[in-house]
């Protein structure tokens, strides 16, 4: 199945204003073609990006924190504000060797900010 059809067959159509034959505006639920194309491109890109990061974590190049940050659609600045940890520290914690040495109190803050249980935060799903 095409990714465009896959993401748009979720049963939650949005409404769009369109002209009817009398020149009045009415609501319809057909998504424009351009929207389907660009949405599919972005979502496919996001999925590929996440998958790439997951592989990098398994290969030991990035820390699991990086994966979960991407999963929650955050960047280091946002995660820093959510967890109450300075941005430069968050950026350091994206490196696996530094992440491995973190104290439980710091991990706890990340787990609350990302809403990921503490045990899961240390690994990524290995499919």
């Amino acid at each position, binding site marked *: 199945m095409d990714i465009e059809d896959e993401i748009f067959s979720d049963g939650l159509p*949005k*409404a769009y*204003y369109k002209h009817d034959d009398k020149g009045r505006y009415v*609501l319809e639920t057909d*998504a424009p073609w351009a*929207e389907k194309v660009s949405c599919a491109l972005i979502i496919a890109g*996001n999925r590929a990006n996440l998958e790439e990061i997951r592989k990098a974590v398994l290969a030991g190049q990035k820390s699991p924190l990086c994966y979960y940050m991407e999963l*929650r659609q955050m960047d280091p600045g946002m995660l820093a504000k959510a967890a109450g940890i300075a941005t430069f520290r968050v950026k350091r914690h994206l490196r696996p060797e530094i992440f491995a040495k973190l104290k439980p109190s710091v991990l706890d803050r990340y787990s609350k900010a990302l809403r990921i249980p503490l045990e899961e935060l240390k690994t990524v799903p290995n499919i």
Partner: protein
Amino acid sequence: MTTELAANGKPFVHNHGAHCETAVTSALFRYQGVDISEPMIFGIGSGIFFGYLPSVKLVHLQVTAFRNRPGSVFRKAAQRLGANLVIKTYRDPQKGMNELRQVLKAGHIVGLATNLYWLPYVSERHRHNFGGHNIIALRETEGGFRISDPTFGDPVDCSSEGLEQARFVPGPNNPRGFMYYTKSINPHPDLRQACIKGMKNSCGLMLRIPLPIFGVRGMRFLAKKIIKSEDKLGFEGACRNLAGTVRWVEETGTGGAGFRYMYAAFMQEASELFGSEDLARLSRDMTTIGDTWREFSVMSARIIKQRNKTEATFANAGGLILKCADLEEAFFKNLQKAVKKLKA
């Protein structure tokens, strides 16, 4: 359109709307017996806008806003229509949820701001980390709430934990439990005065902000960026950026063409209200602008799909935005003149 019962047994009509905030505000007014449509709220609250924010990024893509900042449409519309609202935010999630339950029991329907990423019933394509999605809580059910989300066709059930997670999110996109309900509403609002105020405000926002990223200046800035983007980012990067822009034009609850069709619908209603031929003509102009934005998104989709390579280029896509900027500048200048002739 479906009818649901609110907490006190009063029927609530769920209308499918294009945009969350305007549709929620219109539903709150309709529930109190003031029949006012979604485009009307959008126009009165001065929703139409343009802003290109290159420094704000969501999932690595820049934000291009086609409407005023979240919350302002609702506040302005309520003020101009003479509605008395209770607006609250909370630090403590438990307190926020308890007060929501109390207000629902007292028989109100409550507008809530939530984070779209955490709402349990949305699907993958609607999931943005965006903390300003508005929904209406109708009544408490067993283990959850009955929710009317006007951007979707039917009312939905939402678990209590899910709603709490969506209302209180750690980080900068936290809605902080923002909730609002009507204390009293003027049953016969002065629509003409409100429309005039809304239109004047919109003209100022589009033409007078002296910064290069807002209003028609912002459009020209974005156009220049798009024309240069292929050289700067390479084809794939530029396509991704362009798709991001198209998503802001069409997808994020705009009702098509970056709210331009919705504003044309407002102008249509206003022209009937005032009986003014000027406004009817301006409504047709706005439709032309909307069509040009739609043309831009179709052209962008062709670039992404690599169809018709001689016509569909980044330079042409940017050119269409420049055309939109010229058309909108003329439109709002004409609107300024037309508003002066209207009598409240």
